[in-house]
């Protein structure tokens, strides 16, 4: 669509006022329909390209191309990346969706993601409230609270693997000293999922805490004071002052943590590799196992694509239900 004068924007926008940084200007005369970026805009574009270029390049190379490749692979049957691919259309999807193992993995992902997010938020918010109080050694405690988050994942996993070791782990040792029975933390199908959730909660609750803490610090002190003066109890202050203030952060935190936990591969792989008996196998682990263990690259790609589409759908529904700009 064009506007009088040939611009792509209304005259009021297209270079009509001073200080318009990015825009196009109509060139009068024979080349009235030709547009040239003025020198200022060209300079700005160089800046824009300079800043955005590397990011866009990385996104294209590391995200877009692999994503498109994965989607394409899901329509082929091939045993390894060096096999000759054979077009099978949607057959991989039909096979995957007909597998009870896929549905088990989906359910495991939902359980793992939901349990992790609920616990991380349920623990992260109270800890943030405590850390928001003024007390002696506050800075030290705040720093210490972040420690689990800054420890590399591999180290976190090994710490917990050793602590929960069924024979020599300190947790079972303590249980025995207390007269209890040692627990098969990672060997019993019914307990393994809880153990993996526990490790994730320990490692990532500090992220939730620190984000909430940052949000709490933006709340105007006068609001607390006013609530106190009006006789609000601690619970009422939490409900009517604090929670509305941190709601935008809560929305984003729940979304991000849910996506991250649903896709979390490293912790589960290193702790249990999806076992025992697929008790902790979720879609990313299943995709990996199919592609690189079961010589079904197409099937693995189909699982990964379904996982991607599921997350897209969840994000869309989530933003429809909880509008960030309304929070």
């Amino acid at each position, binding site marked *: 669509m064009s506007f009088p004068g040939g611009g792509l924007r209304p005259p009021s926008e297209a270079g009509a006022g001073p200080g318009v940084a990015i825009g196009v200007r109509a060139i009068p005369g024979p080349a009235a329909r030709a547009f040239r970026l003025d020198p200022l805009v060209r300079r700005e574009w160089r800046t824009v390209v300079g800043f955005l270029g590397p990011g866009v390049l990385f996104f294209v190379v590391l995200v877009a191309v692999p994503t498109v490749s994965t989607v394409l692979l899901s329509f082929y049957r091939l045993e390894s990346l060096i096999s000759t691919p054979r077009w099978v259309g949607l057959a991989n999807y039909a096979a995957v969706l007909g597998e009870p193992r896929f549905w088990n993995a989906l359910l495991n992902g939902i359980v793992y993601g939901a349990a992790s997010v609920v616990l991380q938020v349920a623990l992260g918010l109270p800890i943030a409230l405590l850390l928001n109080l003024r007390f002696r050694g506050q800075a030290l405690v705040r720093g210490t609270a972040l420690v689990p988050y800054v420890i590399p994942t591999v180290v976190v996993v090994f710490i917990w693997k050793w602590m929960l070791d*069924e024979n020599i782990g300190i947790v079972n040792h303590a249980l025995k000293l207390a007269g209890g029975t040692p627990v098969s933390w990672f060997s019993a199908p019914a307990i393994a999922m809880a153990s993996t959730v526990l490790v994730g909660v320990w490692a990532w609750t500090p992220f939730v805490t620190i984000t909430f803490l940052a949000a709490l610090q933006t709340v105007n002190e006068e609001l607390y004071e006013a609530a106190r003066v009006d006789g609000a109890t601690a619970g009422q202050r939490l409900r009517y002052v604090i929670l509305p203030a941190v709601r935008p952060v809560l929305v984003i935190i729940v979304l991000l943590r849910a996506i991250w936990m649903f896709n979390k591969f490293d912790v589960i792989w290193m702790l*249990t590799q999806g*076992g025992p008996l697929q008790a902790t196998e979720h879609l990313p682990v299943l995709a990996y196992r199919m592609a690189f263990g079961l010589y079904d690259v197409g099937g693995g790609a189909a699982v990964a694509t379904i996982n991607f589409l599921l997350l897209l759908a969840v994000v869309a529904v989530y933003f429809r239900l909880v509008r960030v700009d309304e929070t």
Partner: protein
Amino acid sequence: MVTRRSFLKGTAATGVLAAGGLAAPTLVFAQPKEVRWLNNEPDPNTIKFLNETAVEYEKKTGVKVLMEHVPVAEAYPKTIASIKAGRAYDLVTVGEVSMAVLLAGEGHCLPVTDVVKKVGLADFGPKSLWYFKNELYLYPYDYNFCYLFYRRDWYEQKGLKPAKTLNEFTEILKTFTAGDKRGWSQPLSAHATTNWAGVNVLWAHGVRLFGDNWNVVLDSPEVKPKAVAALNYLKATFPYMPKGMPQAQYADLINSFVAENVAHTFYTGRLIHHLEKVNPKIAESYGIMGFPTSSPDKWAVTHATDGWVVIKEGRSNAAALKLLEWFVTERLVDYLRTVVLHYQPVQRSVYKNPQWANDPLVRKHRHAVDAMYAFLDEKRTAINAIDIDGPGLDVIQGKVWNAFVIPEMYQEVLLKNVDPARAVENAAARIRKLQGRA
């Protein structure tokens, strides 16, 4: 207009170009060839030796050997990635015959039959040479037999002798299970550890996965009762295992023995090297044996031959084959001596080699080496493995391995209390399904 300056510049440039052009073929010809070798043996001694050998080979022949070392699990994905990326390795160390089959099946390997023949087919021990489409694609160097380690001193204290039958073995396991001590570490995890170190119990019961025509015989009238018996054996001896076996990995097998928590564990001679380093007391008081079977004069071991393959897409095929030939004829013994008790030679001549036989560790652990050598007697030893079971080599063996069919069959019985007969049927069905997609 041609000035004196521009004329001189032009002449000089033309001269340089001409000189370069004339010299180019010579330079290309003189450029030393490169052989890229991907090694998956992680031991520091082996890595050091290979790096030094690479330097030695370059000095000797002018061919540069670029060594790259990765953990065993990364060798296959990296090999595939290098082929896909158009920069394939020339020589790759692989940890399973199935890897060579997978690569050869897709046409990515060169036969090494001639190299093996030059060394002498008769020199190779049983079940070490694997033909695929009438060619050998893997040059094997060690057996990686998985056998039982036991505490000789504990046996002596109780007046026991190594079991000759499964029933005797059960009784011994029971004897050693008390307090925090357990009879044996038998891996049950859905992990390569169980595929390798947890399947002797199957061979001991005479279990087979495939028949002569690649038909699945695991649930056949002949084999099913044996498989059920093997699962029942695991069920009966489960209380004699330490906790955590359903998640056990290689290190757990070693650690449980080194830490004196169990009377028996499965491993190769690498465990002896660990004992020497970490708990020398046990290095003086262990024994090794095959896994008892129902027959008193037969025992079982599982093998996992390591070897080298030459990748077809490598840029220096001829140089790689030449390097392999030189290495296996000139440096094999030195290579095996880098972890001498772990790399059990597949070539009989190595056992007689004075350098190898007089290695201080071989001399010190002669009883263990003699037992290892005894495993080569097929009349006495049932040798099998998931990746070689069947009438030959096929991709399906690798799939059964990677799908963890056998470990999950164990887990169904031991963790979910599924009836052993049902678990065998489930496993057979899974193998057939994997075959259907092959």
